[in-house]
């Protein structure tokens, strides 16, 4: 995921030095996220308060795509990182490949209280974002596209379209366009999804690869509607572009926290994991960035005002309109096969 790259390295270093001088406790962990405004928001909302409460030092690192580094670190037998915030699919795949610690939820009560769909034996949901249908309000001032069925309807909603150049969430959208209910998607009917995608393919102007690109397409009016991440669309709208999106039939996706196998500070890491998904810390996250808390209990803390909650992807009413991505399916052999099939679909 390239949507939150480029965290100022300076910030990371300053943060680390700051902690090193103030907290004298011997306990410490190394926490890794994806950088950018996203990691800065977490630092304020979750990392600093957790470190203070537990009396530990949190050394931060950031990397846009943690997966190759996780493989290399655990493969070497001496990982440097403890806790990683990464797309949930990597936590699951890592768990299956023996790269992640199995979690003992009796030591992580905050996570144990979360709905089962929000955790796995190796991971806990940390924050939510959504792949939504976004559109130009210039092109569609009144009658707006409101579902993937509308997106596929090129007669009723003429205009240029973009989708992500990736099967994840795109196959889900295709199936919803074909009439499958958001809560009945898994296991995905891959053949049916690709057949439906063939139908819309001639009308897709761009298959975007990065979040920045999807924002640019919408901002410049290069496309009239597209699938995009909610945070990207709201950022473009904030800058004054006439764009909007709907959570209806969005695909709710998450990043999760997981602990590397053989992490140098395992016990502290588990304590941190519990603290990181504490409802109040979690509720502070959306006050700093357009992502929803991973722990739904955050909405019961009164920290998030109702108007703000209504904008967030994982707010219960919004969540109920969406499909909750099954990372378990995507990391299963069927999911991996679907991912491999994508390239040949794109070339034809």
């Amino acid at each position, binding site marked *: 995921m390239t949507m939150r790259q480029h965290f100022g390295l300076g910030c990371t270093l300053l943060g680390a030095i700051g902690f090193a001088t103030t907290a004298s406790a011997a306990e410490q962990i190394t926490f890794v996220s994806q950088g950018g405004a996203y990691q800065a928001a977490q630092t304020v909302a979750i990392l600093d308060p957790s470190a203070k409460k537990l009396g530990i030092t949190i050394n931060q690192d950031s990397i846009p795509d943690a*997966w190759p580094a996780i*493989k290399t670190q655990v493969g070497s037998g001496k990982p440097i990182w403890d806790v990683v915030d990464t797309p949930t699919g990597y936590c699951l795949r890592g768990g299956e490949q023996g790269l992640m610690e199995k979690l003992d939820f009796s030591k992580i009560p905050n996570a144990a209280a979360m709905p089962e769909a929000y955790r796995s034996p190796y991971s806990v949901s940390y924050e939510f974002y959504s792949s939504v249908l976004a559109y130009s309000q210039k092109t569609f001032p009144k009658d707006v596209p409101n579902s993937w069925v509308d997106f596929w309807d090129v007669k009723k909603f003429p205009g240029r379209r973009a989708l992500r*150049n990736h099967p994840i969430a795109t196959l889900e959208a295709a199936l919803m366009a074909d009439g499958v209910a958001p809560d009945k998607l898994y296991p995905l009917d891959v053949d049916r999804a690709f057949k439906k995608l063939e139908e819309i393919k001639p009308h897709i102007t*761009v298959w975007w690869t990065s979040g920045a690109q999807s924002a*640019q397409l919408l901002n*410049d009016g290069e496309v009239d509607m597209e699938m995009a991440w909610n945070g990207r669309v709201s950022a473009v709208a904030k800058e004054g572009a006439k764009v909007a999106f709907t959570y209806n039939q969005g695909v709710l996706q998450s990043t999760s926290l997981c602990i590397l196998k053989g992490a140098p500070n395992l016990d502290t890491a588990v304590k941190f994991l519990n603290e990181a998904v504490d409802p109040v810390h979690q509720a502070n996250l959306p006050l700093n960035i357009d992502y929803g808390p991973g722990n739904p209990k955050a909405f019961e803390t009164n920290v998030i005002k109702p108007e703000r909650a209504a904008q967030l992807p994982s707010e219960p009413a919004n969540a109920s309109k969406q499909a909750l991505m099954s990372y378990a399916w995507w990391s299963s052999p069927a999911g991996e096969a679907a991912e491999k099939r994508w*390239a040949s679909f794109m070339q034809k």
Partner: protein
Amino acid sequence: MLALVSPALLVILLLIVLPVGWLAWQSIYHDGFTLENYRRVFTEDIYWRSFALTFEISLAVTAIALLLGYPVAYLANSLPKGWSILILSLVVLPFWTSVLVRAYAWLALLQRTGVINQFLRYLDVISEPLALVHNTFGTVVATVHILLPFMVLPLYATMQKIPGDLMQAGASLGASPSLTFVRVFLPLSLPGVLAGCTMVFVLCLGFYITPELLGGGRTVMVSMLVSRNVELYNQFGAASAVAVVLLLSVLVIFFAVSRFISLERVLGQK
């Protein structure tokens, strides 16, 4: 002599030979010896199609760069020194801008709401915007722009070494300027043509950012398969097999070219 080049050789050994060797090793060894990665490259359609597309794009880019670059080099060669320096600086100027910025600049020019489409619509030449980017066309345009200096500079270097007397001799024997060009100048500049074409073609084979940003997702070049394979198969071997096949094709091309012309000339020496 050996002592003088040894630091360079050491750097090449450490930074190029060892990593490439390690990558090549990974492609055939993963929990034991395996040809699985190569079996995939040679049997699955997507690889064949990407290699074909990559070679097509590289050929097109080379041809266009030659057509555009030859007159520029010719002009720079025939004008007085001051002018030729100016022309060559203009050719080299884009080198100071990153490839990424240039790709975005092309996007601003070519996209639906871009400068060119807006202008053509203003003139009423077109009613609907043209699809100039997010396809192979946009990729080729931007790639030609980036690689043009690699065509012009070897051409210019070769043309500089063609003695001007030869053209005068042709003229004194009654040949028209165009005949002198075709019979004397052009054949003598051919080594430069071959050198420029080889450089551009080989560099184009490995292009990544430009097709990624301007290809609209449909222009899947080999380099993009390399990065995709790291993601998809979670091991470097699957990706390095693709890279090794591409590297071998480049070596074959260099070998073929070297039968017609010495490699030193391709790389801008003599």
